[in-house]
């Protein structure tokens, strides 16, 4: 998934690699971002989804937990036998699918935001240190990454949640513990590449300390790749949360989640396909949006492409 991040996009040519401040000032950042269609479309969708999640109590037509067995397994509004007001139908307990979908966005986006940010911080710090100071630090970090990569991520996340105990914080911690390696590997490689560039050598010749170069020179040049990775990681986090909900290890069942709805829909697939199809479609579009946003950001922020 995020490991598919193309490496060839990284600035390879020493002459073009270091974006000077003058270059960056030539065109404001927001114009680069708006010029990238994918950033605009995916970004708008995700912003809309965030608004829906935040204002869920006002937007959702019904209480997502309200059961009404008289109204169970209602089909979506366009199908025969539908009940007005239940746009996407109901599940086997008579709960409104649309309202559950809207509330489910809260869990999905919370996990995406918090888990991706924390994983990015942990992985980047280790990656920067390993790539810049090399030696013993690099050896230790690289070995740790190797060991980590020997675990199947899905199994490890299930295992971690089983150990920590179910619930939102456990899901977030599990994702951070597993996915920091994605950031660590990319940031380490990027740092090593930047460290060999002329501008870094120049900064050292002038007499900047190693730490100053790391923070003031390397970090800003690694940042574009990092931002794109965070967006991709958010997509992955949404999937992991859905998988954990699917196997019943995420948040408690009185909080609607897309993964939980999918698990329920999978059980009653032959009676009510919409209970599975609705959250699956949301999951698909949301993951696609994070993915496209990440790709678009990488392009828009790439110092070489920006010229």
């Amino acid at each position, binding site marked *: 998934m995020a490991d598919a991040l193309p490496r060839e996009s990284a600035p390879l040519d020493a002459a073009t690699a270091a974006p000077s401040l003058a270059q960056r000032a030539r065109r404001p950042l927001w114009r680069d971002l708006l010029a990238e269609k994918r950033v605009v479309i995916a970004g708008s969708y995700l912003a809309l989804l965030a608004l829906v999640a935040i204002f869920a109590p006002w937007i959702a037509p019904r209480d997502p937990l309200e059961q009404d067995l008289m109204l169970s397994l209602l089909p979506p509004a366009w199908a025969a036998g539908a009940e007005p007001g239940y746009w996407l139908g109901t599940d086997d307990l008579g709960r409104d699918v649309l309202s559950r979908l809207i509330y489910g966005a809260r869990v999905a986006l919370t996990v995406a935001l918090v888990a991706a940010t924390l994983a990015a911080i942990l992985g980047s710090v280790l990656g920067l240190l390993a790539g810049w100071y090399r030696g013993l630090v690099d050896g230790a970090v690289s070995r740790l990454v190797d060991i980590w*990569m020997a675990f199947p991520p899905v*199994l490890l996340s299930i295992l971690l949640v089983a150990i920590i105990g179910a619930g939102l914080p456990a899901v977030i911690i599990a994702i951070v513990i597993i996915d920091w390696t994605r950031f660590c590997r990319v940031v380490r490689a990027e740092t090593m590449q930047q460290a060999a560039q002329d501008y870094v050598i120049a900064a050292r010749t002038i007499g900047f300390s190693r730490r100053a170069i790391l923070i003031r020179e390397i970090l800003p040049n690694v940042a574009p790749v990092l931002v794109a990775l965070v967006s991709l990681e958010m997509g992955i986090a949404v999937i992991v949360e859905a998988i954990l909900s699917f196997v019943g290890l995420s948040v408690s069942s009185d909080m609607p989640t897309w993964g939980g709805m999918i698990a329920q829909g999978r059980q009653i697939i032959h009676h009510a396909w919409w209970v599975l199809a609705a959250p699956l479609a949301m999951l698909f579009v949301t993951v696609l949006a994070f993915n496209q946003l990440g790709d678009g950001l990488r392009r828009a922020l790439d110092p070489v492409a920006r010229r």
Partner: protein
Amino acid sequence: MSLAAVLRRLATAAVTLFGVAVVVFVLLRVAPGDPIAMMIGPGASEADIAALRARYGLDQGLVTQFFIWLQGLIAGDLGTSISLRSDVLGLLGQRLPATLELAGAALVVALLVGGTIAILGTLARRSPGEAVVDGANGLLLAVPDFIWALAFVLVFAVFIPVFPLTGRMDPTIDMDFATRFFLLESLVRAEFAVFGNIVSHMTMPVLALALPLAAIVARVLKGALIEAMGQDYVLLARLKGKSELRLVLQEALRNALPATLALTGVQFTFLVGGTVIIERIFAYPGIGNMAIDAVINRDLPLIQGIVLAFGAMFIAINLAVDLAVAALNPRLRHG
């Protein structure tokens, strides 16, 4: 690759495997719940518990415990599953072939699909067709196996029911298998009806696992192919009058393979990891499905055995790929 380099690579793999064992041990020791209490259940006397404690070394320090555990591991003693009341090693032997067949079939499909996309993209390069191929591949790249699997469930098991939804084969099939590799064995023994039944059960899970990997193979291979197509030796072959398709297949492909293989190997481990949830969705009787039950039942010995099995598989795949890439690439061979 020199002998020394091979040995060094083997040593790295051994260190990683040891690290995996340490992590598994630590994870399971910090897990809440008393393993002994789970093992014998309620009604056991204090003396029984103490005896079991001593037997598993749980009355010793953590480091001693680790070495007792490691000794058992090396001797092939993975303990007894609490929920299934059966030897963990035996359970793995029973279930692992199903997972290996699933992952192996998915790898083959991924290489075929990915290779086809890459060749089509290369033939269509610098034409409007390339954008179509790249767009389709971009979509494949973005969608994870979990979503594919459930979409297939909806489309091919509910809307147009063409494939069976669950299991490895119909329960009515009555065939005495000598091995647990049902797919391979039915093919080798020319039991084509059984083979076809197994294939139709495996189609959806295999495709779900294969498509994300196919997209990665396609992108890397296409890049390598297009680069190779610009080389002098391809130009020479083109001057000799070879068709574009022949140029790609006979000239460029050979030189584009090592780089693709190196990346495929790493990505294949992700595919193997993906079997856990895919087996769950299709109730496929492999070790991934068993792993989720083990976690839900807090069956620590079984969890431990499965995680180690996955870890060993991952390390073996990475090792095999590194060695294969070195063997294929003449520039690294004498490195």
